């Protein structure tokens, strides 16, 4: 139980003042921390100790504004999950802990021109089984294609473009991906042999844990205008993909934690937690990490791109119609574990910053140059995955999110450990329960069904309502699952 100060400074806003000295009494926060939450969420947030981590992040050299945490905050490694920290692009540091092991874990939404009436339960079952067959999932899942070294280097440097150029997807897809599916700073020579070895057989695989692929129905529209611009309407069938950079990204993070751990000593940085390891952004270590991190981000975009290709193929196989004819366009693709160089206004002044989002999503509002032309009027689509069997959300970015460096939440956030969940439920029972609610699930295993049971998470709608109320992102549509492929 965390008993530090959480002062309400506005609607849905709780601040840990800079004067807080931490549980050991010697913490030196450079800026305050701010947690977005509702009153009802506070007991759960305190129980988890995550606020202490938000305070720890506030000690990073060069941090500007505030150390932020979204309403889906929970305890992470070093940084809390749901944490956002921006550091000065000249004087600040970059930290792999502020990105996480699953670099560019993210979400992609594909729309169709099918309506719920076009698919009966049997068709949905066939689609799920076909998706499960075509998109490898689960522990140690290996993709259908194995790349050679030269191809992998191209993936690391080109991201989703590599996939499109090699026949996986459509040229127009790239326009609807954050960063157009490629961080240009990527340089594969900063990626270890091991990370490359792990990457070769995993481009185009879903992985395990909380990653999933869902066939969803648009259940509710909150914002007709934005929904129309995003090409989404009530009762439409859409597909959501939630996965990241797989073993390649995990290895890159592990490799650089090791490097930056040494850099902490070299640059004489004092940290309250070893997992916050970081280096000045202009140092050799910091620059190397950023170039390698970008490679992992590109890997993840290529991964989701190849999965989209196989999703389209699966629909074509089962329904006997072309993906073009089915209108399977990408609505958008967001990353929720990433660090990026962005321009933001701090205390009325334009600044170039390294924005770390660990379990947080970019939420840029209307007019930002980084978002697709088509979405300029309403802001970028923000995709919030639910957890197996629960609803997911399509939101839109706002200019108010600027107070959080253009960020919002990323999902539900766990309230129960995986083992607890496994003890409490049995996977088959959950599958039956989902079936009763009209959801067909095809998991790689039954135990993962129990671990990822919806009741093990905070209510995603509560999280989304807080970000809506706080103005960080606004609700556009709610989707509910019809069929689930679990890793």
């Amino acid at each position: 139980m965390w008993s530090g100060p959480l002062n309400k400074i506005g609607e849905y806003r709780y601040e840990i003042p800079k004067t807080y000295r931490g549980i050991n009494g010697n913490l030196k926060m450079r800026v305050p921390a701010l947690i977005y939450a509702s009153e009802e969420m506070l007991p759960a947030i305190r129980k988890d100790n995550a606020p202490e981590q938000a305070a720890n992040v506030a000690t990073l050299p060069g941090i500007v504004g505030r150390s932020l945490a979204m309403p889906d905050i929970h305890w992470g490694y070093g940084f809390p999950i749901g944490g956002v920290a921006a550091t000065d692009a000249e004087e600040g540091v970059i930290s792999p802990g502020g990105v996480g092991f699953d670099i560019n874990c993210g979400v992609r939404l594909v729309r169709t021109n099918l309506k719920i009436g076009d698919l009966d339960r049997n068709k949905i079952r066939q689609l799920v089984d076909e998706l499960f067959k075509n998109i490898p999932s689960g522990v140690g899942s290996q993709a259908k294609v194995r790349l050679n070294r030269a191809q992998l280097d191209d993936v690391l440097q080109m991201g989703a473009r590599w996939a499109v150029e090699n026949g996986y997807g459509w040229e127009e897809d790239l326009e609807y991906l954050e960063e157009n599916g490629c961080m240009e700073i990527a340089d594969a020579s900063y990626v270890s042999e091991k990370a490359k070895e792990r990457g070769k057989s995993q481009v185009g695989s879903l992985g395990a844990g909380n990653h999933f692929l869902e066939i969803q129905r648009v259940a509710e529209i909150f914002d007709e205008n934005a929904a129309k611009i995003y090409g989404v309407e009530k009762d439409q069938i859409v597909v959501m993909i939630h996965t990241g950079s797989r073993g390649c990204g995990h290895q890159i993070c592990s490799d650089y934690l090791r490097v930056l751990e040494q850099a902490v000593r070299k640059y004489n940085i004092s940290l309250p937690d070893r997992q916050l390891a970081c280096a000045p952004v202009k140092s050799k270590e910091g620059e190397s990490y950023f170039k390698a991190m970008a490679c992992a981000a590109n890997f993840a975009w290529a991964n989701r791109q190849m999965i989209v290709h196989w999703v389209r193929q699966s629909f074509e196989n089962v329904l006997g119609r072309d993906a073009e004819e089915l209108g399977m366009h990408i609505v958008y693709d967001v990353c929720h574990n990433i660090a990026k160089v962005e321009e933001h206004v701090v205390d009325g002044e334009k600044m170039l910053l390294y924005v770390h989002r660990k379990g947080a999503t970019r939420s840029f509002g209307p007019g930002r140059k980084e978002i697709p032309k088509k979405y300029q009027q309403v802001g970028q689509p923000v995709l919030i995955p639910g957890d197996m069997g629960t609803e997911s959300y399509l939101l839109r970015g706002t200019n108010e999110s600027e107070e959080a460096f253009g960020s919002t939440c990323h999902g539900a956030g766990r309230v129960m450990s995986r083992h607890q969940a496994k003890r409490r439920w049995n996977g088959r029972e959950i599958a039956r329960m989902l079936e009763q609610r009209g959801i067909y699930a095809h998991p790689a295993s039954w135990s993962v069904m129990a671990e990822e049971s919806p009741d093990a998470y905070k209510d995603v709608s509560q999280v989304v309502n807080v970000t809506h109320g706080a103005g960080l992102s606004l609700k556009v549509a709610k989707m509910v699952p019809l069929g689930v492929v679990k890793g």
Partner: protein
Amino acid sequence: MYKIIEHTADVGIEAHGKTLEEAFEEAAKGMFAIITDGSKIEGKVKRKIEIPFDRDEEILLVDWLNELLYIHDVEGLVFGEFDVKINDKLVGYAYGEKYDRQKHGYGMDIKAVTYHMLEIKRNKKGVTIKVLFDI
């Protein structure tokens, strides 16, 4: 001897051994028990692992477990028995077999080994290690 420890979003191992070497072996056993849900792993293949030791035991531990995860990920192997010697470097042997979903069930996908709340403690009974994994 090891036991699995957990927090809301994490899982980890508390491993005990009479020596540092034995504690390293137990930690590795625990890690694969999480991956395979505690199922039996036969020692059909052997892998040798060498890691330089620059006096930081915590880093050595993370390197050791990460190396095993790497082999697991690339070769699709799971390990059940270990033999570790630590002098000026760590030399370890891991005994295991191909991961088989039917046989080994399905525990969890461990993404990486973390430094978070990492502990290596010594007392009269030996060495106790606490390590958390990102899942």
